[in-house]
């Protein structure tokens, strides 16, 4: 039976109650307790730093060459917090409510409320660390609005908020390294969890420079290893993002929660050809001013500027007059797909829609004319004024677009298309962020907990830092307090030996296949299956086909993959093979989960469950639960359900018309 260990009492008292009554570890004992942290993004770096500050002995691992390079760094837009600095009616409750509703009522109320509660402390902590958030002329912090909310609660640092927050956490982490509380292992990849007497007690990691396998003991293990969007091959994730750490834990007994919940971001630069290795996000903020359209005529081959106004279909404004271009991410993405599938797509691939700034440029140009009281300007001069304003607001994004596509977005509408961006699913955790394996915790994007079926913009950064700075320091004590008498387990313990052997056997097996096809080619094929059949729209037939295809792909992978080089040296292809092998298995589980969930909710759209107008239709009677999958054997999982009870935020059908 799944026990979420949610404290009793009224929702807004639960966290206070927990903190007031959880077990504590005294400082002298903390020094004797070792904690392994895998991943150094916002969740991992903040957790390692915070635990080091408390006096625990921390070992932190990342596969990158420095903890500062984790993919949290690429987050653009901002971080939410219920500070209500704008006096616009924000509160902890509203942030909680927006997050639950944005997640389409598939998240656990208690976790989300705690997230909203600690959100304000995150901003305080980051500012104290020197994170240079945007400020007003009075010297106080600036806020902007983001999708899915009606208040301004997003704190930001230009379009590089993730970078600035990660550097803040990284600096805190390096400070603990300098103080000797944290030992950092960069260019190391975790390849197995070590379990002793039913508890997580360490990991096996591969030193990516020398190829050696290393054993690392910890009284507990924290997985902060990010999301698994790269299962689709093409996504906005970094090339190295992978599911391996979480997947190893899953196969050792940690349940996987809601694996099919993936977020497809509507505004990304479209695929340009088979060579494409990754996709680039254009911040959601662009939809504040840009208008999205396709031609009214199918297969219209004219250049965008040659298509007259009356022959353009501003389909979001047409379908959703109330929210227009600012509908939530899942809705905007599906609408773009619908148009392209119907033959209205633009660009050479026909898999793109236009994001047009011509109107905004004119509007801003005229605004400047009024503001500066200019007279007798030509149309070209007004346009130039407008372009200047747009440049000031979005210049870095426009530059990025031009570098990638070679087109000038000030002159030609941008071509955009949805792309995989974030995974709401992840390892199932209880209120204390512990997985179903005792002593094994999961933080940040790697867990399933806070975003339900759809994440709101600017909430990922909030969750990563909440988990690391303000949740785990309390909850881990509750577990470790009972472990103070446990001595460090020597690394020649049979469990370590066996775990290492299983890793090295698997590596040998991979290396000995000596087949014909490259790792990359398998990854691409997996991605195509996932995108076509478990992507923006899913149906029973497709998912069933996908499962068969993935099982077939797995067989082929394990009999025909070609990995160059040797084991005992740096071998990026071997690293990649390890990851792709896990993605293939995950892909199957995602399809299984999507197949099981015969409703549409958030990012999960089952074609069988839609309204007459083609909108997503949730089925609360049958599916108001978290799917937590237990690994049994190859191709075999058992479903456990955690029922979701909404005591405060009562579910309603979302509408943006």
């Amino acid at each position: 039976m799944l026990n979420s260990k949610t404290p009793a009492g009224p929702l807004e008292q639960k966290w206070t109650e927990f903190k007031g009554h959880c077990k504590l570890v005294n400082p002298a004992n903390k020094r004797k307790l070792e904690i392994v942290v895998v991943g150094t993004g916002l969740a991992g770096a903040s957790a390692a730093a915070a635990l080091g500050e408390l006096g625990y002995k921390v070992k932190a691992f990342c596969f990158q060459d420095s903890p500062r390079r984790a993919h949290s760094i690429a987050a653009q837009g901002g971080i939410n917090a219920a500070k209500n600095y704008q006096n616009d009616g924000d509160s902890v409750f509203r942030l909680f409510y927006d997050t639950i509703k944005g997640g389409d009522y598939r998240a656990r109320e208690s976790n989300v409320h705690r997230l909203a509660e600690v959100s304000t402390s995150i901003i305080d902590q980051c500012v104290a660390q020197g994170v240079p958030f945007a400020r007003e002329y009075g010297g106080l912090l600036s806020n902007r609005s983001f999708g899915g909310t009606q208040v301004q609660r997003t704190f930001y640092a230009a379009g590089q908020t993730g970078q600035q927050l990660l550097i803040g956490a990284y600096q805190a982490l390096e400070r603990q390294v300098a103080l000797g509380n944290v030992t950092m292992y960069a260019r190391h990849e975790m390849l197995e969890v070590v379990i002793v007497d039913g508890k997580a007690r360490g990991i096996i990691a591969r030193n990516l420079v020398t190829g050696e396998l290393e054993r690392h003991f910890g009284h507990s293990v924290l997985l902060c290893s990010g999301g698994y969007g790269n299962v689709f091959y093409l996504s906005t994730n970094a090339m190295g993002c992978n599911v391996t750490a979480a997947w190893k834990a899953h196969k050792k007994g940690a349940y996987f929660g809601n694996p099919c919940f993936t977020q497809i971001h509507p505004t990304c630069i479209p695929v340009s050809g088979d060579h494409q290795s990754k996709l680039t996000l254009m911040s959601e903020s662009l939809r504040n001013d840009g208008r999205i359209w396709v031609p009214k005529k199918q297969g219209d081959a004219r250049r965008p500027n040659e298509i007259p106004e009356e022959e353009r279909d501003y389909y979001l404004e047409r379908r959703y007059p109330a929210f227009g271009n600012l509908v939530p991410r899942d809705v905007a993405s599906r609408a773009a797909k619908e148009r392209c599938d119907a033959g209205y797509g633009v660009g050479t691939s026909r898999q793109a829609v236009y994001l047009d700034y011509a109107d905004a440029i004119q509007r801003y140009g005229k605004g400047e004319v009024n503001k500066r009281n200019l007279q007798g300007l030509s149309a070209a001069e007004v346009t130039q004024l407008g372009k200047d304003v747009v440049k000031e607001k979005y210049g870095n994004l426009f530059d990025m677009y031009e570098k990638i596509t070679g087109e000038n977005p000030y002159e030609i509408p941008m071509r955009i298309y949805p792309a995989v961006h974030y995974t709401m699913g992840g390892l199932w955790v209880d209120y204390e962020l512990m997985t179903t394996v005792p002593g094994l915790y999961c933080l940040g994007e790697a867990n399933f907990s806070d975003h339900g079926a759809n994440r709101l913009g600017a909430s990922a950064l909030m969750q990563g830092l909440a988990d690391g700075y303000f949740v785990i320091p309390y909850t881990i004590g509750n577990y470790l307090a009972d472990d103070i008498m446990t001595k460090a387990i020597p690394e020649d313990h049979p469990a370590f030996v066996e775990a290492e052997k299983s890793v090295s056997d698997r590596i040998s097996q991979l290396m000995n296949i000596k087949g014909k096809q490259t790792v990359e080619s398998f990854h691409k094929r997996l991605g195509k299956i996932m995108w076509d059949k478990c992507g923006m729209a899913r149906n029973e037939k497709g998912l069933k086909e996908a499962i068969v295809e993935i099982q077939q792909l797995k067989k082929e992978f394990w009999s025909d993959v070609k990995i160059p080089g040797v084991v005992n040296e740096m071998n990026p292809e071997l690293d990649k093979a390890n990851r792709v092998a896990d993605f293939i298995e995950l892909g199957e589980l995602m399809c299984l989960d999507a197949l099981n969930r015969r409703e549409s909710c958030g990012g999960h759209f089952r074609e069988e469950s839609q309204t007459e107008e083609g909108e997503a239709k949730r089925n609360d009677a049958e599916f108001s639960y978290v799917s937590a999958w237990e690994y049994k054997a190859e191709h075999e999982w058992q479903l456990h359900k955690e029922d979701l009870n909404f005591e405060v935020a009562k579910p309603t059908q979302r509408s943006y018309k």
Partner: protein
Amino acid sequence: MSSNNMNLTLKVWKQKNSQDTGRFETYQVKNVSEEMSFLEMFDILNEELIREGKDPIAFDHDCREGICGTCSMYIDGKPHGPWQANTTCQLHMRAYKDGDTITVEPWRANAFPVIKDLMVDRSSFDRIIQSGGYISVNTGNAVDANALPVEKDKADAAFAAAACIGCGACVAACKNSSAMLFLSAKVSHLALLPQGGPERKTRVLNMVAQMDKEGFGSCTNTGACEAVCPKEISLSNISRLNGEYIAAGLVSEK
């Protein structure tokens, strides 16, 4: 639009590991489209090499959107290649034409030893940060974020310095292999904010001491670092660092 019409010659540094002396290898890459990124061109070359049973080229890369600072190729004599304010991963093949020969080397500096091929070890940057590139505030100690107003111009300048991605192009470009632009960006970021005040003096002294220990050269203000910096970190940060260091060093009482 996608015309795979370029054939290129690549001269790439190959080095088995840090002990190996290394050498240039020449490769032919065919059917390159101008829409590819520079790293995608390497992906394609590597796929080909693997299929032919040859050793692929190791290079560092991760986010491929110009922010993580992992990619680090010295292309035809310029860190991150010919475009201004750009990282290797954002360089696209539009910058080249059919028949071009491109020479690709790793970052060169004693403080950045080559690990393999085009990959170098930049952990010296981490150690510089460890020596003081932070504000010592334990989690939970913070006062309300708006309790301390910061002059907007200073906050903006601090942000501009904090935009550094730690890629090391400044070191690679500098004739002295100096890390001063990297270091000055961090010192400036923290010195410009009131939160950084209490540790302002010890921070700069310790960080410079660590930089010297790592074997970077010293700054002669040539400006090459600023010219190649993908985030356009200003040279004036180095001047600020000098001022901070001199003031701290001369007034320190120990």
